[in-house]
């Protein structure tokens, strides 16, 4: 089966610029997650969607981060404006129902903010 697709693979921007990441989950997976992984740390959940509704965005810095999942399929995560501390790998994952089951991860987007 095709896996979770993410693009771009790498992105380098200057602070205060904006950036967007795209994710296409596995077909039929209702739940989509965006995780942030800072170097040397484990992934941290930013936002979780169930179909096109938000389940959990308690750790999303809403003053600069936004995410949407129109039509309940693919999703975009945006940062505007970016800060140096946003440098990280942004991982997208999906699961069939979201009920503490297996998560399938994408390859991630590595963001460097200079």
């Amino acid at each position, binding site marked *: 089966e095709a896996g979770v697709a993410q693009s771009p693979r790498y992105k380098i921007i200057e602070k205060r610029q904006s950036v967007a990441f795209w994710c296409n989950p596995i077909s039929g997976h209702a739940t989509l997650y965006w995780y942030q992984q800072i170097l040397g740390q484990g992934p941290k959940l930013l936002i*979780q969607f169930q179909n096109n509704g938000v389940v959990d965005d308690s750790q999303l810095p809403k003053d600069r981060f936004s995410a949407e999942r129109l039509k309940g399929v693919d999703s975009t995560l945006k940062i505007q404006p970016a800060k140096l501390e946003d440098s990280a790998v942004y991982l997208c994952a999906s699961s069939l129902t979201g009920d503490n089951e297996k998560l399938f991860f994408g390859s991630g987007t590595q963001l460097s903010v200079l």
Partner: protein
Amino acid sequence: AQRVTQPEKLLSVFKGAPVELKCNYSYSGSPELFWYVQYSRQRLQLLLRHISRESIKGFTADLNKGETSFHLKKPFAQEEDSAMYYCALGTGNTGKLIFGQGTTLQVKP
């Protein structure tokens, strides 16, 4: 507070030696525990989950609620086991996972 602690950043063993990757959690409810693994240049993927009580690639993990631990064990390490291992805690039925900081396992020939 909900937290996962992996005390070792790096664990280095020789091929054939036993391996134990430590994981402790903090959660007041009924936990779901997972081990995820990331091999070099590959995606993060599920290795095993406590509810399945299965052995994957020779690895096992037992949930000890008294010690709030979920240590990953393998009796004889192989070079291909070299990877980054993450312990993760599932809370409630939302699918949200809290990850530990990860342990790099290095198996030397």
